[in-house]
């Protein structure tokens, strides 16, 4: 499965790029996070504390145990601070 992975705010800064395309066989967001963490220290740093992160699947907020079935775009970011 090919996914577009997007990073925002300090997640983007820690990982060093705003987006990448990834081939994965992960079934859930949590599985994808495990895969990313194992890649490089900058990913391990960005994903160290999941309670400080939010995830959106195809531009809708989701949980970390959500399945990736049929998903095209996954975004990781800190809690939002609009307004």
């Amino acid at each position, binding site marked *: 499965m090919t996914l577009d992975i997007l990073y*925002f705010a300090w997640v983007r800064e820690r990982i060093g790029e705003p987006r990448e395309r990834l081939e994965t066989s992960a079934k859930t967001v949590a599985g994808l996070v495990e895969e990313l963490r194992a890649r490089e220290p900058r990913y391990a740093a960005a994903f160290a504390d999941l309670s400080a992160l939010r995830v*959106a699947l195809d531009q809708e907020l989701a949980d970390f145990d959500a399945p990736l079935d049929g998903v095209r775009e996954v*975004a990781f*970011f*800190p809690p*939002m*601070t609009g*307004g």
Partner: protein
Amino acid sequence: MIVRVQAEDFDTGAELADFAADRQDVGAVVSFTGVVRDSDAMLDRMEIEHYPGMTERALTDIAATAMSRWELADALVIHRHGALRPGERIMMVATAAAHRRAAFEAADFLMDYLKSRAPFWKKEVTRAGENWVAAKDDDEAALGRW
């Protein structure tokens, strides 16, 4: 329903002048305008990052929810992104209704949801350095009011 995400400034007055104009059933218009604050004169600028695509979608969902929960004639949300100086407008919401209670509550609701559920992130760039504004527990808790 009007939802705009833009880098350019907007004019609260001009927006309100056009908003829900010529609606005979409107008795109450509430607006909220958010401004870049600089209480201790340290801020150079606020940088607002957002998630193009999801932002418009999230704001539209939030405005549609407000329209369905309160009897509103109309709702408006404008949010800027990019680098903003102290005193610059960041965003505004407006609500129009027959009665004041609906207009006030819906505007308050829009702000609470927009704070915590629309994909914007603020970074403060001050003389002392940069830092991402942390989400407040209060802001998340405020959603429980609705």
